[in-house]
Structure formats: C-alpha cells, structure tokens
C-alpha cells in the first residue's frame, strides 16, 4: 500500500501510470504482455521467434488462417438452429477473438511498445463502458407508469 502510494505520488516515481521512458524496440517482458497471461505469452514467444515484431510471413499466414476459420465458424453458427440464448454471447466472444487477433498481431500491439496499447485500450475501455451504460439506460431507464 505504501509502495503504491509512493508510486502514485512520488516526485519522480516511476509508478505504473508514469509513462514509459525507453526506446520503442524495448521488448515487453513476456509475462507482462497486454494480452494473455504468462502461458499465453510463452506460447506465442515460441511461435513468434521470441516476440519480435518481425514475426515472419508464415506467422501472419497462420493468424490469417485462424481468423478465416473463426469467420467461417461464425457464419456456420448462423445456420445452426437451437442455440437460443447462447447465440449472441458466442458470436460476441468469437468476434472479440477476431478483434484481438487483428489488433494484437496484424497491428503489432502484442509486440509493440506498451504506450500504444495504453492509447488504444483506454479509448476502448471508456468507449465500451459508456456505450454499454447508454444501451442499458436506453433500454431500462424509464419512469414507472402510474396508470
């Protein structure tokens, strides 16, 4: 607690919200990558030649293939009857997976400086929060009919 406090308030604290100093080719530590935990980071570490952004054409083909598969899966789900209430959540999860795939690998966020992730993620977080609130409010915030 005291540490956190100091990080937040210190004159020259290198607190977590202080912005990074290093040059852009400094790697994210694998266990601290913005997406996925340690196991995920390690797995992709192997696949991506140690997490450098020049991952190789083969890697991009692989990601592209997986994205294509997910898209096919989505379209197939559309034809499947009887998913009921599961349909929308499954689709949302799949599209989030595609979204993350493109952002993390095609847009290099996974390998790039964390500052870029902060930029994009903060907008995503604020956007998702407020627009979810708006959907909720528009759907449910009405006055109780008195007669």
């Amino acid at each position, binding site marked *: 607690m005291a540490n956190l406090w100091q990080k937040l308030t210190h004159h020259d604290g290198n607190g977590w919200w202080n*912005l*990074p*100093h*290093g*040059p*852009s*080719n*400094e790697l994210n530590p694998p266990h601290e990558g913005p997406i996925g935990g340690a196991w995920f980071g390690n797995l992709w570490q192997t696949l991506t030649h140690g997490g450098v952004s*020049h991952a*190789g*054409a083969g890697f*991009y*083909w692989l*990601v*592209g293939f997986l*994205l*294509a598969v997910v*898209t096919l899966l*989505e*379209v197939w*789900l*559309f034809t499947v009857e009887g998913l009921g209430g599961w*349909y*929308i959540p499954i*689709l*949302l999860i*799949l*599209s989030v997976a*595609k*979204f993350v795939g*493109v*952002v993390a*690998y*095609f*847009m*290099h966020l996974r390998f790039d*400086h964390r*500052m*870029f992730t902060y*930029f*994009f993620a*903060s*907008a*995503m977080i*604020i*956007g*998702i929060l*407020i*627009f979810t609130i*708006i*959907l909720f409010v*528009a*759907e449910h915030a009405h006055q109780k009919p008195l007669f």
Partner: protein
Amino acid sequence: MTQAAATEHHEPVENTSTGLNSRKLMMWAFLGSDVMFFGAFIATYLVYRGKSLVGPYPSEILDIPLTSVSTFVLLMSSLAMVLGLHYVKEGQKNKGTIWILVVVVLGAIFMGFQFYEFREFAHEGLTPRTNIFGTTFFILTGIHGAHVTIGVAWMAFMAYGSHTGALRKDNALDLEIAGLYWHFVDIVWIVIFTVIYLISATDGPPPGVGPTILH
C-alpha cells in the same frame, strides 16, 4: 544524410522523449478517437435495433452469405496488408508492391459488394428514409464504407510509392501507419458484421407496431 531525409524518413529508434515515432503515436491516438466515433454509431444502431415502425425489417432483407464473402474479403485484405508491410520492411520491393496491390484490389472488391448491397436494398425498398433500421444501417455502414474508400485510396498511393521506389525499407513506417488505419477499418467491420448482420439478421417487426404514426 540531408535534413530532408532526416526529418522525413525516420530511423528505427526515434529521437523523441518516449522513443516512439510521433506519427505512429498520433495514428494510435487517432484510432482511439475513431473508436469513440464508431462506438457511438454502433451504440445508436443497438439502441434502435428492432424499433422500426415499418418494413423492410432486417430479417427480410439481410443477405448473410453475400456479406460473409465480403467480410472474408476484407479480413484477407488485412492479411495482405501485413504481408505487404513485412516484405517492404524486408526490402523485397516487388513482393511488397504486389501485396499492397492485393490490399487495394480486395478493398475495392469489398466496396463493390457494399455498393451492390446498397443498390439491392434500395430496389427492395429500404433506404435511409424508410425506417429507423434503414437510417442506422445505411449511415453506419456508409461511414464505414467512406473509411474503406479513404483506405483504398491511401493504399493505392502506397502501392504507387512502392512501385516507384519512394516507399522503401527505411521509410516503411509510412506503410505501417497506413496499415494501422487499414486494420482498424477491418476490426470495425468485424464488429459491424457481428452486430448488424449475424445478430440482427432474424429481427422482424417489433411487437405492437401501430400504423397510425407514419403514413
């Protein structure tokens, strides 16, 4: 190295406070801004989903197989984009140029699909003025289409640059920034495809629509 080269063509490690390239940083900040832009449009669509007072309703008009193909095309253009960037960074000029051209072509095909779709909808009686579905659908996908158009033009410019040799290994960042924009347009479509097409495709008329309000 001349001054022009020093300022225009950035070195891999930037001489800035954060060590990050200013233009790339700005592109990411702009993408954050665009997140709010599309977020507001998508939120509007979702708030108005299923509130059309008259038809045609999504279930009567959306063509999922067709849009699946165009979605696939746009997704593959992202792959082509990243490959193009990869080869430009490797200094393989011809491969780079070809893949960027593939992006242009796939983007143009996507635009063609969208144009075809808009025309079909208009034939079947759905315009932005028809109902609230038409309004939200056309403006959201139209704004996205405008983004794609800008992206295609930008990529064509890049392909030309790569072809003439103005875009090289040492200023591949120009392409990377354009690529970020292109990928962003793609991820917006990923959300739109799910939200407008797959999820809404079965939406019919809402319960209790009365004819008295619009005539």
